[in-house]
C-alpha cells in the first residue's frame, strides 16, 4: 500500500479569501501536485491563466495540479484520488461557506489512503466579528472557527495594528488556541499551510517571502521518541504553526511527523533516510531556543531509555482532545 495522501480542509464563510488562498497555493505549488476539491466550480473560480483544460467535472491546472467538484459525495471523490496510479501530493478540500469543517474532516477521515493534515479556517479580519454576530449565520461562523487547527486572518492590511491585535485575541477566544496567522490580500502564506515536502528540511527550501514568518530547522543527532516530540511540539508556547519532520525513531527507522496548529500525526516514513525537522511560525512568536531544547531533551531521554520502535499503525492527536 502506498503512503497516505495528506489532506487539508479549508473552511470559512463566503468572502473570507478561500479563492485567493487556493489560487495562491496553486501558484506556489513548486512541482507539488495539488488536488483541489470544491463543492461546485462556481464557488471557486480558478484563475484562468492557470487552467490548461476543462472537462465536465475536472479542471487541469499548470504543474500537474487538478481541481474537481465533489457534488454530493466527498468520500467517493477522495477515494477516486486515493486509487489514482499517481495520487496527488496533497489534497485540499474547500468547504462551502456554510459547511461545518469538522463534519467534512470527519467524512474525509473515513477514506482509506487519505490522512487528515488539519483544518484551516479563513476569516476576513475586517468582517469576522460582525459575521459572528449575524442573526442567521453567527453560530455557523463561530462553529467554523472552533473547528480550526489554524485560523488565517485575511485582509489584515485593511485593519489597523491595534485592531488586528484585538481581532486576533477575539479569534483566539473562539478557537481556544492561538494558532492564528495573518495575511494580506495579495500575500497568503500558502507554503505554511501545505505539506512541506520530504526533501524540504533545509532552510533554503522553506523560505517564505513574508517577513512575518520564521522557521527553525533541526537535525536530531540521535534517534528520539517521535510521538512524544510531536505531542510536545503542539505546545502553544513554542509558537509553531506548522512542522514537518523525517526523523529517526528510537529503533532507528525513519518516522514522518506533522504538526498543523494543534493537531499532530506520526506515521512510518515513505523514505528510509531521516532528514530532520522544520518548524514554522510567526516571527514574533516562534521560540527557536525552546524548540532546540525540546529536541535535545528528547534525544537524551531516548538514548537512555531505548524505547520500543514505532508500531505499524499511525498515531495522531490534537491538543484539544
Amino acid at each position, binding site marked *: 500500500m502506498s503512503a497516505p495522501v495528506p489532506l487539508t480542509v479549508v473552511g470559512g*464563510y*463566503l*468572502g473570507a479569501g478561500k479563492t485567493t488562498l487556493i489560487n495562491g497555493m496553486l501558484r506556489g505549488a513548486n512541482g507539488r501536485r495539488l488536488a483541489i476539491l470544491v*463543492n*461546485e*466550480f*462556481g*464557488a471557486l473560480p480558478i484563475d484562468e491563466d492557470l487552467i490548461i483544460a476543462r472537462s465536465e467535472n475536472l479542471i487541469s491546472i499548470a504543474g500537474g495540479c487538478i481541481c474537481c*467538484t465533489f*457534488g*454530493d*459525495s*466527498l*468520500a*467517493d471523490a477522495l*477515494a477516486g484520488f486515493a486509487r489514482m496510479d499517481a495520487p496527488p501530493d496533497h489534497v485540499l478540500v474547500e468547504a*462551502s*461557506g*456554510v459547511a*461545518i469543517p469538522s*463534519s467534512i474532516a*470527519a*467524512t474525509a*477521515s*473515513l477514506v*482509506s489512503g487519505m490522512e487528515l493534515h488539519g483544518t484551516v479556517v479563513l476569516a476576513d479580519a475586517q468582517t469576522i466579528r460582525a459575521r459572528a454576530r449575524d442573526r*442567521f*449565520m453567527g*453560530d*455557523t461562523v463561530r462553529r467554523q472557527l472552533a473547528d480550526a487547527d489554524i485560523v488565517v486572518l485575511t485582509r489584515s492590511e485593511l485593519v489597523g495594528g491595534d485592531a488586528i491585535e484585538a481581532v486576533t485575541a477575539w479569534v483566539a477566544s473562539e478557537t481556544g488556541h492561538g494558532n492564528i496567522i495573518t495575511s494580506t490580500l495579495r500575500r497568503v502564506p500558502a507554503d505554511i499551510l501545505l505539506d512541506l515536502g520530504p526533501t524540504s528540511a533545509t532552510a533554503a527550501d522553506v523560505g517564505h517571502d513574508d517577513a512575518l514568518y520564521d522557521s527553525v530547522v533541526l537535525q536530531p543527532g540521535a534517534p528520539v521518541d517521535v510521538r512524544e516530540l510531536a505531542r510536545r511540539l503542539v505546545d502553544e508556547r513554542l509558537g509553531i504553526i506548522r512542522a514537518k519532520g523525517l526523523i529517526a525513531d528510537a529503533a532507528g527507522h525513519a518516522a514522518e511527523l506533522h504538526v498543523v496548529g494543534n493537531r499532530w500525526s506520526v506515521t512510518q516514513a515513505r523514505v528510509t533516510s531521516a532528514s530532520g525537522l522544520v518548524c514554522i511560525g510567526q516571527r514574533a512568536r516562534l521560540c527557536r531556543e525552546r524548540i532546540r531544547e525540546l529536541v535535545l531533551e528528547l534525544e537524551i531521554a531516548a538514548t537512555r531509555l531505548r524505547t520500543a520502535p514505532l508500531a505499524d*499503525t499511525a498515531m495522531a492527536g490534537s491538543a484539544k482532545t
Partner: protein
Amino acid sequence: MTETTIFAAKRIITMNPARPVATHVATRDGRILGAGTLDELEGWGEYILDERFSDKVLMPGFVEGHAHTMEGTLWRKTYCGFFDRVDPGGRRWPGLKSLGAVLDRLSEAERALTDPDEPLGGFQLDPIYLGNVEVTRHDLDRVSGGRPVGVLHASGHIMNVNSRALELAGLLRHGINHPGIPLGDDGLPLGPLKGPDVYTPVGRHVGFDRSLTDADEPGLRDFARLCVRTGTTTITDLASRLEPDAVDMMERVTSEDSFPVRVVPLKFFMGHTPEDLVSYVLELRDRSTDRLRLGRIKIVADGSIQGFTARLRWPGYFNGATNGLWYIAPEHLAEIYRRSLWAGIPVHTHTNGDEATELVLDTLEPLLGKHPSPDHRFTLQHCQLADAAQFRRMKKLGMCVNLFANHHFYWGDEHYRLTVGPERASRMNACRTAMETGVPMAIHSDAPVTPLAPLFTAWAAVNRITASGRVQGEHERISVAAALNAITLGAAYTLHLDSEIGSVETGKAADFSVLEDDPTAVAPESLKDVGVWGTVQGGRIFEAAAL
C-alpha cells in the same frame, strides 16, 4: 378529428364555485368542454356517452405539490416500514411492528435472490416506532452474512448496513472516529450510518447508488402507477438534478400515450453558479411539453426538524439540541432569487425551521422592491414551524406555502415530546392560519418520506391526529372543502397551473380523480379511506386495477 365524450357520474365535485356539483362532464381533445347536466351538455353537438363512472364520484385530478419520483425507484427494494403501504403494482405490504418482523421480511427477500453477491436493499425503516431500537450490523448479518445488506430509514437520513457492506466499503476496521458512525464494544462500526455523507459511499455496495434522488426509467413508470392508484394526475419531482440524459428520458417516457400523469420536476440548485442555474432552467423551460413541465428551481435552506438539522429561532430545540444546519448562504440565496425574479423563474425553497423561513422572507423582501414581480408565487416548501407573523409577511410578499400536513400523523408525537415541544408542535403546519391570512396554500406528502395519497394528506390537515391518536393543534384544523381545495386548485396555484388544472371547468384539462365515494359526504375521520378507482388524465382513462 374531434370527438366529444360525455362522462356520466354519480356526482362530480368540480371545485368551481359557479357550478360546484354536476352529474356529467363533456370532454374533447383531452380538455373539458363543460360540466353540468346531460341536457345542458348536449348543446356541444354529437357525443359519445360514457357511463362507466355512473356509480363513481369524480373530482379534479389531484395535484401533489411536493413529492419525489424516487419513490418509484425505492419500490424495487424491500419495504420495511411500520405502516401498511401499497406498492406500484397494487400489493398492500403490511406494516412491520417489530425488528424481528423487519428481519423476517428481509430474509424472505434474501431467499428469493439467486446471485450470491447481489446486494439486498430495504427502505422506510423507522426505529422511532420500534422503541428506538438501534439496528446493528449483527442484526442484519442474520439476514445474510455473505451478501451486502442495507436498509434506508424513512427520513432518508440514516442507513443501517450489515458487516459485509461495511467490509466492502472498507469501514469494517478499527480507528473509525466519526460522529455519524457509532461503534460497538469491539471498536468496530455498529451498523448505523448517520447522514448521507456517511452512507452514500457504502450505499453503492448495497444497491443505493448516488443518484438516489433521481428516478430512473422503470422508477418513473412505477411512480406513475402509484399516481393512478391515488387519484393523482399532476405530480412534482421536487429536487431533481435534471441532467441532460435524465431530461431526455423523462421527455420520452412522459410523451408515451400510456403515460398517465403530468410531471413537474424542479431543478435542484446545488452544483451550479446562480447564473448557470437560471440560464439552464430557462433552456429547460422551453423544452416543456403538456406532460413534462420544466422551468422551476428548488432550493434547500435547512435540514429536518426530527433530524435536528432544521434551523430554529429562539428558543431552539425542546430537548436542547444544537441548532441545525444551513445548506445555503444568504448571499447565494439572494443571488438565485434575484436572477430568478428577473428571468421569471419560480423558486420553491425548503424551509423546515422558522429561522430558515425568516431568512427567506428577509432575503426576498428587499429584492421584490428592486424587481417588482406581482405574480412570482415563490413558494415555501414544508415551512412547518412558521408562526402567524411569518404568514402575514408571506401574504405581503406574494408568497405561497406548501405545508407538510402528513407530518402530524407520522412524527407529531415526536415533535410534541422531543423536537419543538407542546406549544410549537400544536402550531406546526398551520393550515388554518395560512388560509385566514390569505396565503395561497397546498399540502403535501413529500413521498417517499410519507406515502403518496392526497386524500390521506387532506385527512391529516382536517383531523391533525397523531400516530398515538391525539389531536394536535385543534385550532389549525381545516374543513374538508378547504383540504380538497388544497390538493387540487391550491397545489395547482403554487405551480402556476391553476388556469389549466385543479378544477372541473370549461377549458381545463380533462384530468379527474375517479373515486368510489363522495369525500364531502363521508365522515371527516374517514376521508383517507375513500377508495380510488383510478384517474382520467387528458381525457385518457386509467383504471388502477388494470395497471
